[in-house]
């Protein structure tokens, strides 16, 4: 079985983002970019499944501008066997619906038994792509996974999902789509020898046109603004003072 993992290049999670003065978006020039943390977890899970002998190949895919190749290179250094880069010129309009259609086209071509994605990208915070591609493929979905157990004989995946109020366990027939939550695993670091080795691993380039996917935009960004600032607070000196403030000033207790 082949596993396909979708990878997104995003502004590093530790960066405090700045809104551009013209309100057209968030400053991404000269800002540290990395692999989306949930995608790292997705890749780690795919690698673990391969190492357990349940999959033969891990293919990492990414959509976007040329620099996505760097992120794909990182995924190869972590252990992916090969990568596919869907290069798009109008990267700004790659909304989840478009990404899901591109992924579907890649799945149709590569025929993986499992597609793993992160549950959300930490830049647009959409939490949509996995569900959408599952819908397009008519595959079952296991979203927000915190545990994945594959059964090779029955061709099923048992997935523990983090849902409101607890954990839900589902059993999905393969092929299936899984999206990863933070607690699924601890992603590995790429070692230097593996980074060197990754340089000789293949990255195939395709365009949306070659995949017959029309990139459509259903959404117009009107403006991006800073969230309202909270007014400065005060540092108090004692518990008594805190209780007094909560009672008489804020009136919340």
């Amino acid at each position, binding site marked *: 079985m082949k596993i396909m993992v979708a990878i997104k290049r995003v502004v590093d*999670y530790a960066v*405090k*983002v700045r809104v551009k003065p013209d309100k057209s978006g*968030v400053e991404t020039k000269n800002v540290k970019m990395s692999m989306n943390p949930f995608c790292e977890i997705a890749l780690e899970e795919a690698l673990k499944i391969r190492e357990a002998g349940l999959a033969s190949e891990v293919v990492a895919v990414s959509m976007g501008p040329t620099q996505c190749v760097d992120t794909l290179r990182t995924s190869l250094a972590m252990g992916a066997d090969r990568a596919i880069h869907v290069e798009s010129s109008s990267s700004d309009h790659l909304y989840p*619906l478009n990404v899901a259609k591109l992924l579907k086209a890649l799945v149709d071509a590569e025929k993986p038994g499992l597609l793993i994605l992160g*549950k*959300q990208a*930490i*830049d647009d*915070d*959409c939490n*949509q*792509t996995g*569900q*959408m*591609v*599952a*819908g*397009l493929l*008519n*595959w*079952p*979905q296991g*979203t927000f996974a*915190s545990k994945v157990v594959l059964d090779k004989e029955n061709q099923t995946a*048992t997935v523990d999902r*983090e*849902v*409101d*109020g*607890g*954990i*839900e*366990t*589902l*059993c*999905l*027939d393969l092929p299936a789509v899984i999206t990863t939550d933070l*607690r699924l695993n601890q992603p590995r670091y790429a070692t230097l020898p593996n980074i060197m080795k990754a340089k000789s691993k293949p990255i195939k380039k395709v365009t949306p046109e070659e995949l017959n996917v029309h990139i459509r*935009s*259903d*959404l*117009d*960004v*009107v*403006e*991006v*603004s800073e*969230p309202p600032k*909270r007014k400065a*607070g005060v*540092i*108090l000196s*004692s*518990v008594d003072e*805190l209780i007094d403030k*909560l009672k008489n000033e*804020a009136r*919340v*207790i």
Partner: protein
Amino acid sequence: MAVGVILRAFRLRKPCFSLLETTTTRFISTLVLAEHEGGSIKSSSISSVEAAKCLSKDNSISLLLAGSGPSLQQAATHAALCHPLISQVLVADSDKFIHPLAEGWANLVESVQKKDGYTHILAASGSFGKNILPRAAALLDVSPLSDVIEISGSHQFVRPIYAGNALCTVRYTGESPCLLTIRAPSFPVPASEPRSTAAPITQVDLSTFGEDILKKSRFVKRSSQESERPDLGNARIVVTGGRGLKSAENFKMIEKLAEKIGAAVGATRAAVDAGFVPNELQVGQTGKIVAPELYMAFGVSGAIQHLAGMRDSKVIVAVNKDADAPIFQVADYGLVGDLFEIIPELLEKLPEKK
């Protein structure tokens, strides 16, 4: 093949569609996907109705419920009375919907939409809505919008991006329907007079419902933490502990404090990862988003990802021994000190819940 030809024909006729749209924009009809538990509608689903109200003054709002048996019928009765603006309650009663699986729900939404042609479809952005709505959007070939916090017109919305560090105003320019998940704390339901007459309840016709996909996904089990405390998502007060609590044993102090003042308990990712509490208590970008009247953070540093989940709280109190902790930049009231001394003192001096 024939389908392809018809679809192409539709695409060619697109200009005609947009003409139709301009003349009908005033008619807004919304389908709200509702979650129910123990025979009543969840409050986040009622918040979705409140959000639907903001789309247009003349909005015909239908509530869609699925499930099976007496608890569904009970929930339907509750739904028919739960909000003055609900014009009808649609009920899909079948064994297929005993568990709210995305595969069945998305097909259900698609078939209801194909029949009734709503302009908008809404759900609260809990794990239920986030799981189902994007799948339904893909089946309908439209782009959904997640986590909407403000509705400024039938097709213009505000949603947070980058863990709440920027707000994005988006105009939906795609075809009908427009699919949204909304952040329930941003659309609080005012206490209102209960409506005197119940909205009509209609059964959804499931005779043509596609079943193939339903067999591919099976519910196994669900484990949940039973708790007497209020639900984290809509509690009036939330008491949160972070890594500073040091152990699961110490975290019990947070629980005790919460119990005393009638608050829900929250946690940071660090506290969850360290095993102090189960992960459904996590507040933040990837956990729950809360906006209570009072948010008390103990031993929480205030990482970007945590602030994303609580920055809209009305009053924020932070207790931390590190005076430079970022949490103090958003706190209305800060106490710099050892929480192992401060919590017991609060336990002693805070008034009991009303």
